């Protein structure tokens, strides 16, 4: 039953080829994954938490998987310059589902740091230790990813190493046929290490249908600090199901900010397991919807240790017939006294056909807590609009300025100044309906009509 079967079939027919192209650590998890999805259905609308986004439907088209590791011309990556002005990064690419790192891109990287394919020989020790240990395979889509994934990225920051510039990973879809990519990231930030990672999702052409199934596993050692910025500027024919699982040891500090600027049908899930005391967690996100776009964010911060703070901020501006969904939960277990956990979801509907569905949740099993959540859905502030018009600013301009302003505090959470400026610019351009063509880039990622 369900679309998962076509992929099980695909696996059964090609498992030898898949195994041949992947490292032993990746192969070691496949049989278990297969047993977990056997007879299961991908999450669909009848399932609690998936009321507005059906993963089943996302996977229903019989997508091709690049089993034969057909090489996509590297010049795509070469000509693709996802540069952030005033910010120098160590850049690498995932073209569809293949890892690629340009020559010299790892110059001056501190020794011991690994940014490489999950299949590369230098990755194997770490991959064997952490791969598949943080993600929860209870979601059949995660198990399916584990079953079919052939490449991915390991980011390893050894104990005490603090990277002085951010890492950047560009996900690109480029293919002559409709395609599904199983993307996998394993991020290990050891004790007292610090790193920042910027992920940009792009779709090179607007012709083909793409599906990205992305599973990110983040392990944070004691007092580690890690920022993840995940910006999606794909196309209206791109579907994305991304799940991030993080485990935080004591004293660690995690920031995740997911920005959906252009998408087709996107679902992002964040599951943060706070297992050590004195952790900080910040989850932020924004979605700007127009046309028929659909953006769904779901968060689950699971407090299992004392004296931790978490904060969530998600904002949506929805125009045309676009739809948004947010489901956030804070869980404070009996083992997590002195937790402070906050969650805020603010939404603006800019057109009559736009729709928003919100479900913020608190589940508290401890009385030594300070927890709150708030959700609002409304429109632009009429008095601010009139104030601006009375100063000569046209209604259209005033609306756009207010929408940008609405997103300002999500951008404020970014802990890199250069990126903040860049994001302000991208958001502004997005609202003004321009293609969010990046500076110096020869590729038109998508059409935005």
């Amino acid at each position, binding site marked *: 039953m369900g679309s998962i079967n076509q992929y099980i079939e695909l696996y059964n027919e090609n498992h030898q080829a898949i195994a041949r192209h992947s490292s032993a650590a990746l192969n070691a998890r496949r049989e278990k994954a297969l047993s977990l999805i056997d007879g299961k259905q991908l999450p669909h609308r009848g399932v609690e938490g998936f009321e507005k986004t059906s993963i089943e439907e996302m996977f229903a088209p019989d997508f091709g998987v690049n089993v034969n590791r057909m090489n996509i011309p590297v010049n795509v990556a070469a000509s693709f310059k996802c540069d952030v002005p005033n910010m120098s990064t160590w850049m690498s690419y995932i073209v569809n589902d293949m890892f690629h790192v340009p020559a010299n891109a790892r110059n001056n990287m501190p020794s011991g740091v690994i940014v490489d394919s999950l299949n590369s020989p230098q990755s194997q020790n770490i991959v064997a230790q952490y791969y598949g240990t943080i993600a929860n395979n209870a979601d059949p889509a995660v198990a399916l990813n584990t079953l079919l994934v052939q490449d991915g990225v390991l980011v390893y920051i050894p104990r005490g190493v603090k990277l002085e510039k951010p890492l950047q990973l560009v996900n690109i879809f480029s293919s002559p046929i409709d395609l599904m990519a199983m993307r996998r990231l394993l991020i290990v930030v050891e004790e007292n290490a610090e790193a920042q990672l910027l992920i940009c999702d792009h779709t090179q052409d607007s012709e083909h249908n793409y599906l990205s199934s992305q599973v990110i596993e983040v392990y944070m050692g004691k007092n580690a600090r890690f920022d993840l910025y995940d910006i999606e500027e794909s196309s209206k024919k791109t579907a994305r199901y991304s799940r991030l699982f993080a485990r935080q040891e004591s004293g660690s500090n995690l920031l995740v900010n997911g920005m959906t600027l252009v998408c087709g049908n996107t679902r992002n899930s964040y599951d943060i397991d706070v297992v050590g005391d004195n952790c900080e967690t910040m989850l932020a996100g924004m979605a700007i919807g127009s046309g028929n776009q659909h953006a769904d964010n779901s968060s689950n911060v699971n407090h299992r240790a004392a004296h931790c703070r978490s904060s969530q901020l998600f904002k949506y501006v929805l125009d045309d017939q676009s739809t948004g969904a947010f489901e956030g939960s804070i869980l404070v277990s009996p083992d997590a006294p002195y937790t402070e956990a906050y969650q805020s979801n603010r939404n603006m509907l800019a057109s009559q056909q736009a729709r928003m569905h919100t479900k913020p949740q608190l589940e508290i099993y401890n009385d030594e807590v300070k927890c709150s959540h708030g959700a609002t859905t409304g429109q632009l*502030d*009429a*008095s*601010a609009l*009139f*104030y*601006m*018009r*009375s*100063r*000569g*600013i*046209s*209604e259209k*301009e*005033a609306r756009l*300025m*207010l929408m*940008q*302003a*609405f*997103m*300002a*505090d999500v951008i404020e959470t970014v802990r890199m100044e250069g990126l903040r400026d860049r994001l302000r610019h991208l958001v502004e351009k997005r609202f003004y309906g321009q293609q969010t063509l990046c500076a110096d880039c020869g590729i038109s990622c998508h059409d935005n009509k």
Partner: protein
Amino acid sequence: MNDNILLEVKNLHAGIDGKEILKGINLTIRQGEVHAIMGPNGSGKSTLSSVLAGNPTFTVTEGEVDFHGKNLLDLSPEDRSHEGLFLSFQYPVEIPGVSMVNFMRAAVNEKRKYFNQPALSASDFLKLMRQKRAIVELDNKLASRSVNEGFSGGEKKRNEIFQMAVLEPCLSILDETDSGLDIDALRVVAGGVNKLKTQDNATIVITHYQRLLDYIKPDFVHVLYKGRIVRTGGPELALELEEKGYDWIKQEVDNL
């Protein structure tokens, strides 16, 4: 048309949600004049300023307003601004996330666009801001903050006059600009208004009290009551109101 007439209001009726608040306002304002509009609470003073500025919350049901040859009521709020009408808000609106600089740059350049002028360069714009800021002694720090957000009462009112200085209107309406100001702030704000006064522009001062009129000298004083101007006089009328209150006028009108 008389050359120096700026604003001519004829039999203006307006209200909100079907409830009439202005019940036939007549008012003529010429270049170089300062008019004070006074009146008890709820008489319609703030409604009048909102209606002139085009606040969509209010509906005009009857009457005409000519603004130097243009039908004011036909213009959008932004075009009224471009044509030179400025309203200093009684409660300036806080706009989180929109910086003062972006806000003012948009305002200035939209006006220039309206008159087919090119946008100001960044350096010219900043020069203009610096120059105008001096008029109301506005702190440089406020310019980098969000519009009115976290400003004190005095800072908000100063910010209004600063915007007035930048936009150089021909008709300014100061809606209870004195409310919430201490005496020092009042002096600075009034000083700013006086510096901006020329032979060509005009000012409407809406106020409850005589206090502000010690600093901004009116040529005419109007008393608004129950949606109508019930009395017009010179500066001495304001003094008389200060001394005797509004009750005697209310009685005169109510007994008619």
